[in-house]
């Protein structure tokens, strides 16, 4: 029963909330979409915490994504034990980086009085979720070897079955509790996106790579506007 809740109901709810919610928030309350930077209030600890946490999570995110999308390649890569160790070690290092980063950020928030004023209940929830995810992730990596090997046979089918609208718990339900917690916290995180600063990674500013440096906005596009003199030659509109 709890499996059905944690591994089916929660994932679907989270995905729907995330999709509908973030489109809704982006469309109607774009003002709320920000990374809510706190560097202005405290910069030094953020350097360490922010960097460890972000590079860790970004690498892990793509790691999980690759494992899900190309399970065969990962298995093939792991065919050689040296390469398996390298992959697992890299994943663990990013996991530890993420964990250390989150811990630094939590202590930073606790220690700095100014930051108390900029910390909301949602921030606390965010850190609880991230810390849970970091701890369970590292725990799994250390105790259930080798994640990169069994991911393909256990999690890939499960996640695929979710997307195919035909949830299949056969493999995952046999997994230890800790892995189930890790999975459901991940979906919790996804469900929190529209309500928290998590929105910030959905709006990663890719456009900056190619947009022109200067931005000029006209109330009315002079180049595109039709020339009213064509219709009424003697009358020229006075604005602009």
């Amino acid at each position, binding site marked *: 029963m709890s499996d059905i809740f944690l591994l089916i109901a929660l994932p679907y709810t989270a995905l729907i909330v995330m999709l509908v919610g973030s489109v809704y928030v982006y469309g109607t309350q*774009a*003002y709320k*979409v*920000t*990374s*809510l*930077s*706190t*560097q*202005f*209030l*405290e*910069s030094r600890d*953020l*350097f360490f915490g*922010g*960097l460890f946490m*972000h*590079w860790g999570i970004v690498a892990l995110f793509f790691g999980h994504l690759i494992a899900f999308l190309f399970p065969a390649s990962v298995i093939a890569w792991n065919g050689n034990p040296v390469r398996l160790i390298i992959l697992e070690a890299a994943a663990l290092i990013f996991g530890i980086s993420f964990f250390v980063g989150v811990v630094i950020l939590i202590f930073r928030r606790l220690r700095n*009085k*100014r930051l*108390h*004023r*900029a910390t909301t209940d949602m921030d606390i929830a965010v850190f609880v979720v991230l810390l849970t995810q970091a701890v369970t992730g590292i725990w799994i990596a250390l105790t259930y070897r080798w994640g990169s090997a069994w991911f393909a046979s256990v999690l890939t089918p499960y996640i695929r079955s979710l997307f195919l609208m035909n949830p299949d718990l056969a493999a995952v339900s046999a997994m230890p509790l800790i892995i189930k917690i890790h999975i459901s916290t991940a979906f919790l995180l996804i469900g929190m996106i529209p309500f928290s600063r998590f929105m*910030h990674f959905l*709006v990663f*500013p890719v*456009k*900056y*790579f190619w*947009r022109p*440096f*200067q*931005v*000029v*906005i*006209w*109330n*009315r596009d*002079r180049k595109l*506007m*039709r020339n*009213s003199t064509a*219709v*009424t030659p003697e*009358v020229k*509109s*006075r*604005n*602009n």
Partner: protein
Amino acid sequence: MDIRSQIAMVFHLDKCIGCHTCSIACKNIWTDRKGAEYMWWNNVETKPGTGYPNKWEDQSVYKGGWAKSDDELRLKGMDRKSTMANIFHNPYMPVMDDYYEPWTYDYANLFEAPAGDDQPTARPISLVTGEPIDIKTGPNWDDDLGGSPDYARQDVNMHDLTPAEKEAMFQLERMTMFYLPRICNHCLNAACVAACPSGAIYKRGEDGIVLINQNKCRSWRMCVSACPYKKSYYNWNNGKSEKCLLCYPRLESGQAPACMHTCVGRIRYLGVLLYDADRIKEIATCEEKDLVAKQMEIYLDPFDENVRQAARENGVAESTLDSARKSPVWKFVKEWGIALPLHPEYRTLPNLFYVPPLLPAIADTSTGSYETTSASLWGGIESSRVPMQYMANLFTAGDTEKIREVLKKLMAVRIHRRGVTVGDLHEDECKQAFAETGLTADVADAIFRLTSLPKFGERFVIPAAHREEATELLENTADIKGNTGFGTLNTPQRI
């Protein structure tokens, strides 16, 4: 040619009395909110001094503005790639302590304290943490040279001064200072606009005001470090950057910006300049020594019929062209050439110009009394208490000749007016002053009038925003009228 109109400003530093009324007017309207308490979109600094935020001019720390490498212009701090690589932590961003921690006082205690032996006090309370604080610094802690060893002596503009010149600036009997009021420069080549990863900062085409779209700002906080003038501020409460918006709601309804309207010394002027947007890049990339002269070239003569025609074709309103002809900024900056940009070496092409101060520079105490007559014509300027190099570092990217030229013109106006009103100067002296500066009696009188006796309408020539035609800004009324009727943008086609 791509002629556009820009609202530009002149601040006449000889007239600034350092009263901070401008700052208060601005604060009361715009930044009296949680998260914005520390912001002073308008602030007044004492020079020499380190300003606000502390040492903002030190671009070796904050990396604001542009740098020229070979023939290319790049943001001094971070290019596009390193902006992304540093997006989790901006290495050049000033923090609250570089500005100051804002505070209020516990006034309630004055009324509510229980009866006791001592007078109750109102302790300073941090507006961030809400707890009592020891005030260490404020936005104008260096006012009037207060705390000079910590502030004035740390001034960033003293490079290239001889040790003797530097020392002289701090001798008790030679010491001097002037005020430098600052707002956003609404630059032509704004670094904040270029640095914003989300593209939330933009320049308004019609009047050149630079604004931050609060719905697009994602708190990547790159504008804060990129602006070399540190005029983009981060609101720590709502996670948005904010900046001076030149009181555009006031401008659009024909009123002067609050800081300018309230200016007690009446030092501020505002008006239109026409410029050629096609030349921005070329001019921002020129050699440092040419920057001021080149920037002057970008502004075009509103009396020239060709310029006006090109502007019209580009969509500049006729009323704006009229304002451009009456613009006091045009007069100070181009016609008379006595107003200079602040730190042109940042290469942002700022649109706020300063008439540099002549200062009580002439006085000399070597005879034992306070002697204010100068022996020779330009003696006052040559023996100025503020080294020319210092002024040049502020206003001409280090070119002392240029700053001397401007000060001589200002001096010539004084000599001329003294000849007219007091009549104790030899006629030759006035003639020589004019000959050397290229001024004439008429021009000198015009400068004098606009400096000393301008009416409100002469200081602020605000082009109409044509709010009455606001619909036309959104839809082409002539088309709409004959198509779908007003108030709808749908085309009248059946599907």
